[in-house]
């Protein structure tokens, strides 16, 4: 089902995210690969699950194959598609492939730069940017490719986009967000934010945009991970106070602490927008209890 339909129905949309493995995932009657299991943990708790596209420019199983696998296990995938590795021909072709294979939702992204990944000598593509990709995808939904040729059958994809509320200057990020909306973005997922005041400023500024937004929340699993994100993950800032809080967790109590922090942040920032996008990075098993704690806070 399209996420846009859920937003239209006034649902508070909960999504999560998995990263495909580095390797083939042929199932052949055996147990599903770990990233599918990760998604299955939360099958009854989330509306859909993002499938990352060679995230952080680290080469992995393709997001389309992984999205299809999720679909076969009864989950609703959000197919992430980046401009980093595909030119405009490949992007359009992959959008049509996704729709043909039954994918309903696509998240259109620029993509992390190759220099951040494990194939630093690769040739970066970036033939088009995320705003242009949205326009192209909208065109395919309307039955035309980007040069105006008619399609035998239009695609029918809900088009998602991302925004970073922590970007400075925020005005510049919002200018781009508005362009994304003008060119076809129908819903947004935000970069992870840990500062409720910052998120509130963002949420107020974008209220008039009249587009559904999901608050993005990466589950912080350890102080080490928080520090790593601050140093190496572009666009994310974890406040020192949260790192200290994680450090105070008793032996063996990190997961409980992470769940507690995740719930608190979700309660603080979720209600400011129309949904939450959890990025649990392998700890999807905490999501059910977090959602339990959110009951009544968001509809």
């Amino acid at each position, binding site marked *: 089902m399209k996420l846009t339909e859920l937003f239209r129905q006034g649902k508070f949309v909960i999504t999560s995210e998995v990263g495909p493995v580095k390797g083939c995932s042929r199932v052949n009657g055996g147990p599903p690969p770990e990233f599918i299991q990760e998604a299955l943990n939360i099958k009854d708790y989330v509306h859909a699950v993002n499938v990352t596209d060679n995230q952080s420019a680290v080469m992995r199983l393709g997001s389309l194959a992984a999205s299809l696998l999720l679909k076969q296990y009864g989950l609703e995938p959000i197919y992430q598609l980046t*401009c*980093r590795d595909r030119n*405009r021909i490949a992007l359009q072709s992959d959008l049509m492939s996704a729709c043909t294979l039954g994918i309903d939702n696509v998240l259109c992204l*620029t*993509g*992390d*730069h190759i*220099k*951040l990944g494990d194939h630093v000598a690769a040739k*970066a593509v*970036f*033939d*088009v*940017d*995320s*705003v*242009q990709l949205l*326009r192209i995808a909208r065109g395919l939904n309307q039955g035309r490719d*980007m040069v105006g040729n008619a399609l035998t059958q239009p695609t029918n994809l809900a088009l998602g986009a*991302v*925004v*970073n509320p922590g*970007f*400075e*200057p925020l*005005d*510049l*990020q919002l*200018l*781009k967000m*508005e*362009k994304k909306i*003008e*060119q076809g973005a129908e819903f947004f997922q935000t*970069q992870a934010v840990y500062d409720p005041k910052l998120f509130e400023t963002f949420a107020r500024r974008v209220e008039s945009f009249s587009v559904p937004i999901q608050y993005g929340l990466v589950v912080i699993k350890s102080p080490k991970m928080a520090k790593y994100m601050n140093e190496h993950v*572009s*666009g994310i*800032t974890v406040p020192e106070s949260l790192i200290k809080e994680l450090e105070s967790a008793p032996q063996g109590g990190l997961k409980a602490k992470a769940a507690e922090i995740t719930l608190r942040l979700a309660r603080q920032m979720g209600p400011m927008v129309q949904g939450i996008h959890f990025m649990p990075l392998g700890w999807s098993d905490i999501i059910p209890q977090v959602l339990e704690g959110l009951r009544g806070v968001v509809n």
Partner: protein
Amino acid sequence: MIATTKKPLAEVLAALEGHRRVALVGCDGCAKICLTGGADEVAALAQELKQNGLEVILEVTPERTCNVAKAKPALEPLTEQMQQADALMVLGCGGAVQITRHLTEQFGLTKPVKVGLNSVGHMDTVVPGSMAMEECSDCGECILNETGGICPVTRCAKSLLNGPCGGAEHGKCEVDPERDCAWVLIYSRLAALGELDRLKKYLEPKDYGKAARPRTLLFKEGRVA
């Protein structure tokens, strides 16, 4: 300017393997500016080649080796000397090397023309004698009028045309924290000019056909073929 760096001596020597008598051709244009192929660098390489048992029979540094109008008058009178060489070694950009090859062919010489430098881009000298940076990608479809005179095709690591990615932090690029985010620079510049509205304009995907190589410029027609 076409920026160049020197190849390691071992690579230069390897390229000249099997050749004893060498003619050295520098370039008094860009390579001189980059301290890689002016007369001084040609002389320095000549010394090193000699120390490694090679014979340098000619050192010449045309004003602009990539330009036939300058290179031909400088090299043609040296045809006989070049005839004595087993190989030519050019300290210039890849263009200088190939113009030198064109010319040797015109002069009736069949000599290997080797390169001693790596060409690293179309760059602009920002600090004379010290630093040049890449600011233009020669895309064939200049958008500087829209972007406050700062090129996102070149200075944004992802060549984004419609604003920044989400990866910049404190105005710096996700690829290199020492590098300014091109879009933050563009934003600041347009804000200073009172032209922020320009950023609202959607820019279409570039026509990379205009950058498809190899391009030929027809001066009089003002046309790229």
